[in-house]
């Protein structure tokens, strides 16, 4: 492996969360963005060809080293690591609405879900999955919510564009003048 690929491996293992291109470039003042990309590709291939238990994945606009999913059950059984808790169906619904309609206010979410979501928004804010993006115009200037990089990381998305487009869903709204972005 080249010295740069080794450095990237060490940095990604140490970081844990997805590392952004800027952060990787800061590792070596002599490295160009192109050489970083080459080294990342070298690292990815290394894991593939040598048949490692880990892999390099692109998530939330950055790169992250993750363990291969086939080993998860064994690791959990041996209690060396535990999977994070599942999000409830209600939480996933709320996130779906925020992801597609952001920035979106509480009342619009409640209108779509048909239930109060105050407590749910608090939980999602606490977990860092959503954040306040600003305030709407109008009476009371309600808070508007949007998704965060943690959201992308949680769902292993490179960017929001990886979510299915509204017209790719089996129910496409024809009556709705403003379809999902």
């Amino acid at each position, binding site marked *: 492996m080249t010295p740069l690929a080794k450095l990237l491996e060490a940095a990604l*293992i140490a970081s844990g969360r997805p590392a952004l291109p800027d952060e990787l470039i800061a590792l070596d003042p002599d490295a160009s963005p192109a050489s970083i990309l080459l080294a990342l590709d070298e690292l990815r291939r290394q894991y593939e060809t040598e048949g490692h238990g880990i892999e390099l994945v692109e998530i939330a606009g950055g790169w992250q080293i993750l363990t291969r999913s086939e080993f998860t059950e064994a690791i959990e059984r041996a209690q060396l690591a535990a999977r994070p808790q599942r999000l409830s169906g209600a939480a996933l619904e709320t996130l779906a609405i925020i992801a597609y309609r952001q920035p979106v206010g509480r009342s619009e979410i409640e209108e779509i*879900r048909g239930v109060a979501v105050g407590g749910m928004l608090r939980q999602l804010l606490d977990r860092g999955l959503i954040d306040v993006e600003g305030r709407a115009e109008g009476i009371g200037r309600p808070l508007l919510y949007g998704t965060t990089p943690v959201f992308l990381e949680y769902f292993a998305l490179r960017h929001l564009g990886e979510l299915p487009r509204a017209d790719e869903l089996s129910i496409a709204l024809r009556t709705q003048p403003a379809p999902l972005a």
Partner: protein
Amino acid sequence: MGLLAATGVAADSSCFVVDLDQFNGPLDLLLILIREEEVEIADIPIARIAEQFLERVHGLGLSAAAEYLEMAARLLRIKAQMLLPQRDAGDDWQDPRAELVRRLLEYQQMREVADVLEKLSEQRRSQFRSGCVSPERAETAPALQLSLAELLAAADRVIRMVRHPGVHDVIPRALDVDGAMLTIRNLMARSPLLRWVDLISWNAESWEVLSALLALLELARRGELRLRQTRSFGPLEILRDAASEAA
């Protein structure tokens, strides 16, 4: 079944456990019923679905959740509207179900996205990130990024929290629905027709107003009295018997 009458008012906390575990809200329950019945969202047999909805809400003890009751009321209203003669207006006739259909479709779309998110999260959950974070890193915390808008939003949330006290908070005066029901019964015994203003004094506190309102609704539900409003925003009339059709 006397519509909502059979649902009772017992607000057992276990109701909400069922609520959280089984359905994500009234729209979710409605979609499940529509799927079970194998009918089209765009052409819901409203009478049948409304009946099943009420049955399910009652059977699962969801009746304490306002959202389900609200939906039940909505379904019954649509059902009533469907029974009205459509005249021969043809083009002018608006399907009373249209708004519900729109909301169901919108909700179903979000449900589908939620399912996509669930699959993605399951896939991601099946992979661990590296757990070895070098201890030195925690020492030098990176710079903080703060904005005034964020702080004010947080202050806003805090105030909202304070304004929605938890159940353990001490409320100066609890609601007295039973007391208000007794008062209304006594008043009704003397007069067959009452007005809202007869029930509460001009300087009533908010807990008294709320108690009276809930008592009124409960008595109406039990069929001990009926409520009538002859014109929009007109005075509310409270009548002794519930024999004839409600207005």
